[in-house]
């Protein structure tokens, strides 16, 4: 198939074929990162800007490494070093960046819809690197990639997402991606952190952690989004970690070959114990590794799109 989209703004709207196409493309790039000389000339002459209004370690670095391994030129702009702090609006920033003719702009923003606004203002491709509590499509794609890689399939799996669902763009994007497959998705967390009508997205809601993890193939942990006021949704971090922290005892209830995922950054001792985060079931670092391949695939598809 050919890639025709200008932007990747969310999982919503993507067809199953498009999702599988991205994953296949990513697959072919994964090997490059294992070479001694980790660089191919595929995107030589292309310019990729990462425009980050929110802090990030993984996503920004991952995009930059992905772009560099494809020989693209990369420029990183973060809120603290941009004219944003001087009061420039997103619209003006967009128009100014546009004048410098980048091929792709990766944006992260604390407010939902900011990437959509940017996409409407520029001819460059726009990739949503996370917008508020809305979507984080590249994370969901790398999660799906990791699940496929570890389990050999997505269909037939029970996938449990645990934590601050209401503030989580990762949960939203994952739920929307997993909907395309024959999966049993269970969302678990305190009711204050479960958005109303969540079941409409085709998931089950379970407040009890022990029941949620029963026979799970995949357990995806989320952190409390302190920057979105997550802490006020629970009485205390201590109580939260007692009730919703993932511990070794939970793993006994899950499938023998369960995998533990986390989009990072992890808060050790809050949503996950050291023992589990660093244990044999954890694929948290594999996710990070796959993130580079998935983002290489996405940058490749967007810059080579058929217009």
């Amino acid at each position, binding site marked *: 198939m050919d890639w025709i989209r200008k932007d990747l703004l969310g999982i*919503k709207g993507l067809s199953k074929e498009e999702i599988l196409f991205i994953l296949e493309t990513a697959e072919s790039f994964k090997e490059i990162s294992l070479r001694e000389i980790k660089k191919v000339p595929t995107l030589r002459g292309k310019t990729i800007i990462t425009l980050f209004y929110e802090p990030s370690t993984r996503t920004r670095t991952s995009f930059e490494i992905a772009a560099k391994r494809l020989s693209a030129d990369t420029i990183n702009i973060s809120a603290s070093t941009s004219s944003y702090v001087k009061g420039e*609006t*997103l*619209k003006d920033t967009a128009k100014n960046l546009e004048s410098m003719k980048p091929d792709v702009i990766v944006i992260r*923003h604390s*407010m*939902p*819809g*900011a990437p*959509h*606004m940017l996409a409407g203002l520029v001819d460059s491709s726009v990739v949503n690197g996370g*917008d*508020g*509590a*809305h*979507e984080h499509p590249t994370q969901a794609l790398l999660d799906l990639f990791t699940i496929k890689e570890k389990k050999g399939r997505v269909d037939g799996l029970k996938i449990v997402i645990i934590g601050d669902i209401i503030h989580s*763009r990762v949960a*939203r994007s994952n739920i929307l991606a997993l909907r395309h497959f024959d999966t049993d998705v269970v969302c678990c967390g305190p009711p204050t952190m479960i*958005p*109303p*009508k*969540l079941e*409409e*997205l085709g998931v089950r809601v379970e407040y009890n952690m022990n029941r949620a993890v029963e026979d799970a193939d995949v357990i995806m942990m989320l952190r409390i989004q302190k920057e979105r006021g997550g802490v006020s949704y629970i009485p205390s971090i201590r109580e939260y970690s007692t009730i919703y922290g993932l511990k070794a005892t939970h793993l006994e209830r899950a499938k023998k070959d369960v995998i533990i995922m986390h989009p990072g950054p992890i808060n050790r001792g809050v949503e996950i114990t050291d023992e589990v985060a660093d244990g044999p079931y954890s694929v948290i670092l594999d996710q990070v590794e796959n993130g580079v391949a998935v983002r290489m695939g996405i940058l490749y598809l967007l810059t080579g799109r058929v217009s």
Partner: protein
Amino acid sequence: MKILIKNGRVIDPGNSINDILDVYIKDNLVEKIGKNLREKGNEDHIIDASGHIVAPGLIDTHAHLREPGYEYKETIATGTMAAARGGFTSIVCMANTDPVNDNKSVTEYIIKKAGLEGYCRVFPCGAITKGLRGEELSEIGEMFEAGIVAVSDDGKSVRNSEVLRKAFEYTKIFNIPVISHCEDHDLSKGYVHEGSVSLLTGLDAVPSIAEELIVNRDIVIAEYVGSHIHLTHISTAGSVDIIANAKKRYQRVTSDTCPHYFTLTDEATLGFDTNTKVNPPLRSKKDVEAIKEGLKNGTIDIIATDHAPHDMTSKDVEYNLASSGISGFETALSLSLSLVHGGVLSIEELIKKFTINPARLLNLPYGEIKEGKTADIIVFNPYMEWVVDKNAFYSKGKNTPFHGWRLKGKNLLTIVDGRIVYRDTHFK
């Protein structure tokens, strides 16, 4: 000035008129209404209204003119020009200007400015509390003397129930309504309706109960002290229910809604278009249906615009940062006529909600076509199709989610105080 409007269908629910009639206007008054009125030969204008509807000028109980203080968003001149284009001959402007209309100087300023530059009648609504802070009552008596027709802290609810109680009591002296903007402060930390759509957009959301709690509280307080309460821009099914029940036991409850609450659902927010950001937010399909039902069964008495013009800089930003509001004067009648075309309301019922009902709420001597009374009259065609072009708005506020919509029904002529203040270019 003498104007003869011939052969139009005159619909005036206030006087139970619905017939093909001629209307003769002399100076600022309706001199004669009748069949085949003879031309005297000295008319300044003879309007052929055949095929059109002749109705009392519309009265808007809820608008924002932004002056003083926000003249870059709208002025009394541009706002009233837009109102006249939309068919409004009297409008109520809310108090959230800068300075706030919480004292007679501001009231007098608005009235003076409207007299000099206005294209239609302007009736200021005073603030309930000083600075809209919800703490102390404004000088309602002095503002009443200066010309306010109601009080409201529109934009927010009076959070302190004791202060609100005092407002309901104090306004009894002047017999003016308290207009309640219903929004629980603590439950309203969001930008869109909480439901299936906010689940997808991840935008911070406001639940229906934020409105319903205050609708209920404010009715309870008004009923307790025996004052008139008018609930404005009602948007949820639950509110319609609460008001319907209250009306069964207490007579002095009225309410209004706005065209966007029966035209758009929260699905319009899916693309993050900031023109869909409005307070209260666009609600679910179920709510929209309930609003229509409430209009039909009389629970909702009035259609108001909540005309809220903004400059583009306030809208060309991230959804969270965008100002709330829709520029509504120039689309309100057309959007509302869809209720008639869709079989929700009869044309008389619709006109009633735009004329005599608001006139009674505000004790205004307008909203009807009657011999010897002021000539505030419009001529509109309920079937004429046109495409909304925000760039052609008379209002400075181009913030509309209806840009590019093909609407059915258009105001053609507006007469205020016996003077033609607006005439559609296609209406010869």
